[in-house]
């Protein structure tokens, strides 16, 4: 079973979103997603200052067998990309909810965060996908 921490929110396309104390949102891919992709060999993170629309592809994670777009569920401006992933993409495999974060963004509408799935809903979503 993959880990689904309860203090963060989730999307149907297997991203997770965390609200940081200053209101910035942090985004990464879930444990389930990293497992499905296998060993990551490359992560493309967006440039700081880039404006992203809700649902826009904003990063790419690449394993030897697949490349997937990462969609940001919330509109905003990128404040940081995880530059450590350039040399150590395996952080996403090792610690998807921690050191394997992909980007941080300042949301234009903070309330959207609350509309995302919580851990229970995401667990249910995974279950339904498995069938």
């Amino acid at each position, binding site marked *: 079973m993959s880990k689904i921490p309860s203090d963060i929110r989730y999307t149907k396309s297997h991203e997770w979103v965390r609200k940081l104390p200053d209101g910035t949102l942090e985004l990464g891919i879930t444990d389930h997603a990293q497992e499905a992709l296998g*060993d990551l*060999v*490359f992560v493309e993170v967006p440039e700081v200052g880039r404006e992203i629309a809700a649902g826009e592809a904003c990063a790419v994670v*690449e*394993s*030897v067998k697949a490349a997937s777009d990462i969609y940001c569920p919330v509109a905003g401006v990128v404040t940081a990309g995880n530059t450590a992933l350039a040399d150590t*993409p395996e952080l996403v495999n090792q610690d998807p909810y921690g050191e394997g974060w992909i980007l941080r963004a300042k949301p234009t509408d903070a309330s959207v965060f609350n509309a995302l799935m919580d851990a229970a809903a995401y667990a249910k979503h995974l279950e339904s996908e498995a069938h």
Partner: protein
Amino acid sequence: MTSPSHKRVAAPEKVIFEHSRPGRIALAQLPAATRPADLPQDLLRSDRPLLPEVSELQAVRHFTRLSQLNFSIDTHFYPLGSCTMKYNPKACNSLALLPEFAARHPLAPESHGQGFLACMYELQEMLKEVTGMQGVSLTPMAGAQGELAGVAMIMAYHRARGSLERNEVIVPQAAHGTNPATATMCGCELREIPNGPDGDVDVEALRNAVGPRTAGIMLTNPSTLGVFERRIVEVARIVHEAGGLLYYDGANLNAILGKVRPGDMGFDVIHMNLHKTFSTPHGGGGPGSGAVGVGKRLLPFLPVPIVGREGDRYRWLDERDVPQSIGRLSAFMGNAGVLLRAYVYMRMLGREGMTRVAEYATLNANYMLARLMAAGFDAAYPRRRASHEFILTLKRQARDHGVSAMDFAKRLLDYGFHAPTTYFPLLVPECLLIEPTETEALEDLDAFVEAMIAIEREAEDDPDKVQSAPHDLPVRRLDDVRAAKQLDLVWKPAA
């Protein structure tokens, strides 16, 4: 069959640069030349490029050894689904390389190319006949470039009629990856539609997908699922009534050559993979050749140059003759030498031979499928006729023994067979797409089936042996993750 018949063919070979000695020269091709004094110094190179310094024998031996590390049609059964790895007749190669053909400059005048142009003209005519099309252009240099030409022509057709809004291309899920990639290159939007449980396109989904924005649909028939699209006439009607055109991906033309023609099925444009159906070499990954054929509606848009005939003279047709052409896709006229090989092949087969291609390719595929099913393997579409290829799904073996389709593929190499296509089409889990082609003999098909049965037994008794295969090749399974993370793409001399 109890043990692999194939033993390691050759030991690994050093990288060519490791054979180098400074100052060693392979052949004195020319008298020594000094650096040209009349070239401006600031435009000259200051150091020599890193090229090998070896003798001619060292070079010949090195590359001959490398060749021995390969599987090929000439050395191994190569049932790579969707790639049509049939015998490449030697005569096609030697006749295409006759000195006059090999030396002919592409811009030499037509007066010094009537022999060559005659071959090209007749090739166009024969391809029109076997596909049921009205016009053919030979210029695309590979299947993917043929696709680009095809979709570009569809777009040019709509634009010429003022239909600026038509930019959606419909692609079934089972399609080759080149189809969606091509649509993107042509500036189109993609609409994927599902395939039904029997492998055919979901016609209801198609009906819902078409509309005033439909530019066309890209179809492979028989599809990549190894079955003939039975409702093709209905599919064609739905797309045409919606104002779209039908694109035929010729990847599987070998299955129906001489039996049914894309033009008669209602297709408006087709690319042919001459390196598959017409047996030109695959060359370790090219050259391909992706001639395109079109129906009447798309004739004005064919890529140039095309070969025309006036009386008994042949000449190039270019932008002046085909003013609405989508243009040029290569510097000259595509892979001319490949086209000569295809021409020789078609003339040797003749009209009876064309039909035999599909017949025996289909016979071989259905025979292998019947034997493998009898041995307990699961077909992805057990109630359908195989076309010239078929799909096994190894879901059960993966679940019960932890042995994947990739493991089977790798173990087949130990048994002396090139693996079938694995993990394509993506729709079928743990799949092997197997295409024997018409040029394989019964005893070779049987040997492959026996190897599959033997591997199945190994998967039950000694799964590790299969999971860690291959064991008898020049290298064992390679670390793809390391290859992608620690990129080593060029050789560097030791510091």
